[in-house]
């Protein structure tokens, strides 16, 4: 197990290097000059040249990348061009908000998704099955920026139950978490339904019924546990989707997370910040998938890591 974890962590090194190369050169391919954005073009040519020199943008790209990697190896992500603050400090401020939001939306997705999936599987080809399937389809189809605004309109404006924006209270988390978790819930519902239906047709389920076990016990102990493996893998993948989706949801709900920081950084061509955020997201993605892999062993004792 430990060897497996160490191996996976080592794999992180080439992954991060590749991500850093891709991000660094891709953002330089996009038109737009951070100095121009910073000075809004009203500075003199000398002023722009001085700022470009201070920020190191007058050096060849390969040298700039080398400097970036050198600093990265020393744990330094550089300073934001836009705010002048250390990138790591800015990310450290915003990351907890995004993690809180993605974790909450993951809970929404799993609870809602599994419940709908189980209901649909148990009530196969009955009303509840169709209702759950249609709900799941709606969850996948609704764009989050629209769904979020509808939730704000209903729960903040008309019912006045929940705040439309901010991150100062626990209630502020509910609407963004539901918005962000909706599509993941829908996917989990569909997958758990089909997976559970598959398992429930197996011989051992028939045996369990023959033994006289209760239907809910069969469902929980024998059915769900076996059906969870494919669901778990999609949960890991969905986490990355949630990080991406947070970009939009955070803007709609004024949630001060990493997604909005990323949007601001991209629009302002804040290259060090964009790199820092993408690398952080990559680390989180790899770490979450590692955790999911390890969870397989817990759910299914047949899986062993050596």
């Amino acid at each position, binding site marked *: 197990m430990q060897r497996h974890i160490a191996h996976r962590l080592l794999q992180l090194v080439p992954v991060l290097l590749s991500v850093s190369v891709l991000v660094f050169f891709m953002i330089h391919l*996009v*038109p*737009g*000059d951070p100095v*121009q*954005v*910073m*000075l*809004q*073009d*009203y*500075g*003199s*040519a000398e*002023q*722009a040249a*001085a*700022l470009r020199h*201070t920020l190191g943008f007058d050096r060849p790209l390969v040298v700039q990348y080398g400097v970036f990697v050198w600093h990265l190896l020393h744990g330094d992500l550089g300073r934001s061009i*836009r*705010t*002048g*603050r250390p990138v790591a400090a*800015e990310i450290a*401020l*915003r990351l907890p*908000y995004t993690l809180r939001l993605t974790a909450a939306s993951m809970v929404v997705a799993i609870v809602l998704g599994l419940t709908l999936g189980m209901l649909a599987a148990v009530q196969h080809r009955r009303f509840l099955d169709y209702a759950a399937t249609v709900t799941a389809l709606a969850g996948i189809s609704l764009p989050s920026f629209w769904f979020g*605004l509808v939730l*704000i*309109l209903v729960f*903040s*404006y008309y019912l*006045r139950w929940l*705040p*439309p*924006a*901010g*991150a*100062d209270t626990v209630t502020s988390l509910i609407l963004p978490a539901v918005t962000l978790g909706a599509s993941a819930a829908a996917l989990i519902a569909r997958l758990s339904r089909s997976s559970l239906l598959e398992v429930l047709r197996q011989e051992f389920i028939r045996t369990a019924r023959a033994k006289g076990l209760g239907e809910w016990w069969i469902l929980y102990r024998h059915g769900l546990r076996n059906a969870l493996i494919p669901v778990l893998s999609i949960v890991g993948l969905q986490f990355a989707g949630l990080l991406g989706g947070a970009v939009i949801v*955070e*803007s*709609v*709900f*004024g*949630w*001060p*997370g990493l997604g*909005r*920081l990323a949007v*601001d950084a991209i*629009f*302002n*061509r804040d290259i060090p910040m964009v790199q820092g955020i993408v690398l952080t997201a990559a680390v989180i993605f790899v770490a979450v998938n590692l955790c999911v892999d390890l969870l397989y062993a817990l759910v299914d004792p047949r899986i062993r890591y050596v």
Partner: protein
Amino acid sequence: MAASCGRAEGASPAGRSRSAPPQAQVGAPVAQNPSRAGTYAAAQEKNAGKSTMDWRGMTVARARLVCLLVLVLAVAAAAPGVGAPVRGGTLTLVLDSDPPSLDPHKTPAGDLSHYLIYNTLVTADKTTGDFVPELADSWSIADNGAVITFKLHPGVKFHDGTPFTSQAVRATIERLVNPATAAPGASWIGPIDRVETPDDLTARLIFKQPYAPIFSSLRIVFLAMLSPAAIAKLGANYGQAPVGAGPFKFRQWIPGDRIVLDRDADYAWAPKFFKNRGAPYVDGVVVRIVPDESTRVIAFERGDLDVLPAAPPSEAGRLVQSGKYQVFRTPVDGGLYLGLNVTKPIFSDVRVRQALGWAINRDEVVDYALEKLAVPMDSPLAPTIWGYAKGLKNAYHHDPDRARRLLAEAGWKPGADGTLQKDGRPLAFTVWTYPLETNVRVAVVLQTQLKAVGVRMNIEQIEPATLLARTAQGAQDAILISYGWPDADILYYFFHSSRMGSTNRVHFSNPDVDRLLEQGRVTVDPARRMEIYRQLQEMLLQQAPWIPLASLYTVTLAQPWVHDLYVDKYGDLLTNDVYLRK
């Protein structure tokens, strides 16, 4: 996109910066009348005492009358806008994005959070827009404008307790122009040579040559006064714990969520136009950061926000018509224009450029695309900008026949699909604009109007950083963007040939225009300077590198419980008289 002290080409953000020029129409609240409010309160006290004294000798009828009067006065006192100011409460404002920094030397844009923390040497009068003292008590101009001597207000202290003296003026300006600071706003101080400090309360700004727009610059955030002690202590981290001499002290900034400010109890130097020249009535200000405009509007309608600066145009009309809120309409200090890249073959013929000027119906643009929250613009300068000249003889109005004649003279003939053609090429171009609802709506109206005279205009939406970079290189046919700045000197940036490759996006070069732009910068005498800009506007209209379209209003809304708020001619919130009574 955040406006850089109003100069940025783009949309006005929520809580726009101090930037607008002296303007003809000021946003005025619809509710309260402070002077009457005071009278009512005083009358109530007086009458209350009298009624107790005379009660026994009164007839029943007189007693009833007095009761009625007391009741009326009590109701009047409870009504919004009536009564003495109330201390306490938190004023909640909103911005659409975080300021890049709260250090005025590290931000390309000033927003309301800066102006609550910092004060400048001069400010603008709340009604006339004239420059009036803020941290300076008076000033004198010598050497044809190359030397300006400020007498500073005594007894001013920064939030860290450092006294405000001429040393602070020098430290602030030296930090601004120091290349190591890399301040985005460094160029706006003009050709400054040095700052002399003959005594603690006298600061002398000495320029290498006269710089006529200096007072417009002196009131913006880049020239907000900084504490020398805090500069020495905080250095590049000044923005993390900003220290100013404004009415509110910095307490906390949760990026992406809110900026929290506390009232400075020692503040006693508010400009004379405030009724309250001391510390603000409210305990503090919370500036919420809400990027989505629909969410901002809902938060305001729920009452989570006390003030909604720069209401989105799509919602402003509905909110105003609801009659629930105080409304402040402020014309902005700039406007939307269609900029034609004169180096492109299609626009190298001045007759084609002029034809577009005649083909466009600005009234339709204002009525249909801008929901009447704008005024048509007949000059490259908006009517609110200093230097705007009325009655320009080269101004365009809607005359499609004249447009068609000019295009025919230029050799363009009707093609099969209705688009004019010349040498087998259609009269077609692509306009680049920001993906903003306002801009796109205007573009669609223009597209229809130009089609009517045989010109095909395609619309392409491009995000700001890309548009800035590619238009500086001259890659575009035309642009549809906006600008803002209170002084006519802004034309220097847009049309001087030395600005080619940056802000001269139309790649226009004309020696006569260059000469006038240079004269306008150094001519201090207002009448002579005005004449220079009048000639310049005529010349630019005749050459038509820009087709001016419309100057937009900013609509600021306030809740009924916000009393004595004022939005000045520059679109700034004046908060020192504000008190909250819910």
